[in-house]
């Protein structure tokens, strides 16, 4: 021991441990190492690197154990530093023992230092949560067989219930087990028994809704300890029944309120409720609730403004004036706690911190997008996560804990391993590998990103259907070069533009006919004149020069005139060859040509109408012109007649 201690501590003095201390420290160490699943090592919270090798205690259970010692965080940090775990990066046996000794020193009121551990010290006291009770034990007194030094306190409502079940199981199945008489190899049994006693005491105190510090409960439980040896089985059963009744009451009371002992822990039901409330304020679970919205919402809780202000200060960890989902849950939880009479904490409890809340409650698939956004923001603080992980595992452990046997330690480890295996696919909790954070971070976003993308895709697909249908109507599916959109647009410009690039398959035929048609539409006024007013061909020709000023139509007239002469006769029949030309076996071309045909026909109709109007106008003007001519002739005659009279 001493040699090992000196080797491990380095500059520290050799560690002198009494026999009792040695035993209990080694048990503790075995617990911590065993709880981690054996072998794999994790560094202290500060340095999360894997240090392979010899038996080491995982930092998770170690951190829990240290925290259970009820020392302030700075002291624990100091202890961790002093014991050398920081330096070497893991909790080896020596570091662990030194740490335990330092804890004992701190608890005795001595300053934390290497010197203080040289002297004889009482054993360190640990306030165990139920998880600790399951996994490891802190009751050194068992070894001594004299008195209970460490009270066990269950700190979670769920654990209360389950532990009760456990105890009942145990009590019914192993009634003859009495704590002090039990062999040291089955410490968990011992733990559970005093726990039940502790429960009854605790529940009595709980009913007063008194958030007393944990130490206040110590005297309650401690006197119970020595009396455990006496009662044996019957009082245990009795206690179990008592506890059952108490637990029922507890459950009824705690629908939406926090549990008495650990008011800062959020249960699943509470979590569900908070998330639903969040969604009622803000449908997107990964987004934020703005300050004003949250203010209105929380003001409904009828707490005073300064208190609400303080709750906000506690819960808005990043001080951005908005609440994310974990922040919102923390704030809601604090409000609920305050309404139930709990004084607000000085600082945000670790179980309410956003990182912890994210890790603690793996969300169902549809909320996984939330974690994608938070995966980067998870800090390196392993402790809350480890605590959570171990507790989750232990909860699962409890759930599937089989018939208790003598060799519970082995079962513990196995159950833990199986629970770990179960838990891994379920809630993506880390195994005891060292890069816990990175693994979990990578694993979570990876798996959840799939589901999130599928959700997003589904959502997007949901929006897609409305848009496609209109499109095919406008565009033809197969035509590539012919843009019928332009064809279908105002027919006059379309006709004027010559029906655009015709399909490549029919360039020769449709082109001239189409262009003819287009130009003919233009020429219809003139062409109509020509056939309809054959007698006025000369005036028509005259009209042509009159209509010269508009130069554009003239060009078109001239061009088609060359062709018009050719196709004058079959003006109406032009559509025929075009249609014939278009009526080809190619279905695509047929479609296009039929559409073209229709377009052309409508264009023709319109142009004919225009032609008719213009023709009428033309005839009228011609009439007027005739009359004007005649008047002119008459006047000239009169002038001539008058002239000889004047000319003398």
């Amino acid at each position: 021991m001493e040699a090992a201690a000196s080797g491990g501590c380095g500059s520290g003095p050799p560690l002198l441990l009494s026999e009792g201390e040695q035993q209990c420290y080694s048990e503790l160490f075995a617990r911590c190492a065993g709880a981690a699943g054996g072998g794999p090592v994790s560094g202290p919270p500060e340095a999360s690197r894997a240090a392979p090798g010899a038996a080491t205690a995982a930092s998770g259970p170690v951190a829990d154990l240290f925290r259970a010692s009820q020392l302030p965080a700075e002291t624990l940090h100091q202890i961790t530093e002093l014991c050398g775990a920081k330096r070497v990066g893991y909790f080896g046996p020596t570091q662990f023992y030194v740490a335990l000794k330092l804890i004992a020193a701190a608890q005795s009121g001595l300053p934390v230092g290497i010197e203080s551990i040289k002297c004889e010290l009482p054993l360190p006291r640990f306030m165990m949560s139920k998880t600790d009770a399951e996994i490891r034990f802190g009751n050194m007194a068992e070894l001594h067989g004299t008195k209970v030094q460490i009270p066990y306190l269950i700190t979670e409502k769920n654990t209360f219930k389950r532990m009760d079940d456990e105890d009942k199981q145990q009590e019914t199945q192993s009634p003859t087990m009495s704590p002090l008489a039990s062999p040291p190899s089955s410490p968990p049994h011992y733990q559970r028994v005093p726990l039940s006693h502790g429960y009854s005491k605790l529940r009595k105190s709980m009913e007063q809704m008194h958030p007393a510090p944990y130490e206040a409960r110590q005297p309650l439980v401690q006197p119970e300890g020595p009396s455990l040896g006496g009662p044996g089985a019957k009082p245990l059963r009795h206690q179990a029944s008592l506890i059952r009744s108490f637990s029922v009451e507890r459950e009824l009371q705690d629908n939406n309120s926090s549990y008495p002992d650990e008011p800062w822990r959020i249960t699943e039901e509470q979590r569900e409720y908070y998330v639903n409330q969040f969604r009622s304020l803000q449908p997107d679970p990964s987004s934020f609730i703005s300050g004003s919205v949250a203010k209105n919402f929380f003001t409904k809780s009828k707490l005073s403004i300064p208190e609400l202000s303080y709750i906000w200060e506690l819960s808005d960890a990043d001080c951005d004036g908005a609440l994310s989902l974990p922040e919102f849950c923390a704030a809601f939880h604090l409000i609920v706690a305050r309404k139930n009479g709990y004084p607000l904490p000085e600082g945000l409890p670790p179980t309410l911190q956003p990182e912890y809340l994210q890790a603690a409650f793996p969300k169902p698939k549809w909320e996984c997008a939330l974690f994608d956004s938070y995966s980067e923001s998870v800090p390196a603080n392993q402790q809350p996560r480890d605590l959570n992980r171990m507790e989750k595992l232990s909860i699962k452990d409890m759930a599937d804990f089989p018939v208790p046997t003598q060799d519970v330690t082995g079962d513990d480890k196995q159950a833990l391993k199986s629970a770990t295996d179960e838990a891994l696919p379920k809630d993506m909790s880390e195994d005891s590998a060292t890069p816990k954070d990175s693994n979990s971070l990578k694993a979570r976003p990876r798996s959840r990103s799939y589901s999130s993308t599928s959700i997003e895709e589904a959502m997007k697909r949901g929006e897609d259907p409305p848009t496609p249908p209109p499109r095919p109507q406008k565009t033809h599916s197969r035509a590539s070069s012919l843009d019928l959109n332009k064809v279908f647009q105002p027919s006059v410009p379309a006709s004027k533009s010559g029906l655009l690039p015709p399909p490549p398959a029919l360039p020769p035929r449709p082109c001239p006919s189409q262009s003819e048609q287009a130009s003919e539409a233009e020429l219809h006024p003139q062409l109509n004149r020509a056939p309809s007013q054959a007698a006025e061909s000369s005036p028509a020709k005259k009209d042509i020069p009159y209509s010269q000023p508009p130069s554009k139509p003239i060009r078109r007239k001239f061009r088609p005139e060359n062709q018009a002469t050719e196709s004058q006769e079959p003006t109406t029949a032009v559509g025929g060859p075009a249609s014939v030309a278009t009526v080809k076996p190619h279905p695509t071309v047929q479609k296009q040509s039929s559409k073209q045909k229709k377009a052309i026909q409508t264009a023709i109709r319109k142009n004919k109408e225009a032609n008719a109007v213009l023709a009428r106008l033309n005839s009228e003007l011609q009439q007027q012109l005739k009359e004007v001519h005649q008047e002119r002739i008459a006047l000239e005659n009169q002038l001539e007649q008058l002239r000889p009279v004047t000319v003398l």
Partner: protein
Amino acid sequence: MAVCVAVIAKENYPLYIRSVPTENELKFHYMVHTSLDVVDEKISAMGKALVDQRELYLGLLYPTEDYKVYGYVTNSKVKFVMVVDASNTALRDNEIRSMFRKLHNSYTDVMCNPFYDPGDRIQSSRAFDGMVTSMMIQVC
């Protein structure tokens, strides 16, 4: 380490004022009050130029025999005034700047709280109080 820290609103009424408990705290209040004139002077002097160019830290407003008064103004015309002990020669200008920056950050955090009404006294923010306490001289 400051002897007195004050946050003055735009309308020149105090939002927060805290001093080291001595027998005559009122003199600190008086000093802060008179320093407001100097602050206004400094602001208006730079006011001709663009507001952006104006630096937030105003520097030493005026020294007295026992104390020195430093000023800092935010863009929303909220003023921070700090009175330090003149005998504390070790206190550098950069330290004062950093203290003001911390004050400013804490002040914005208070502002972010939707339950805080701008214009109210800053009395409910424990974080702000804690920060100011850390800045004040530790009077044993």
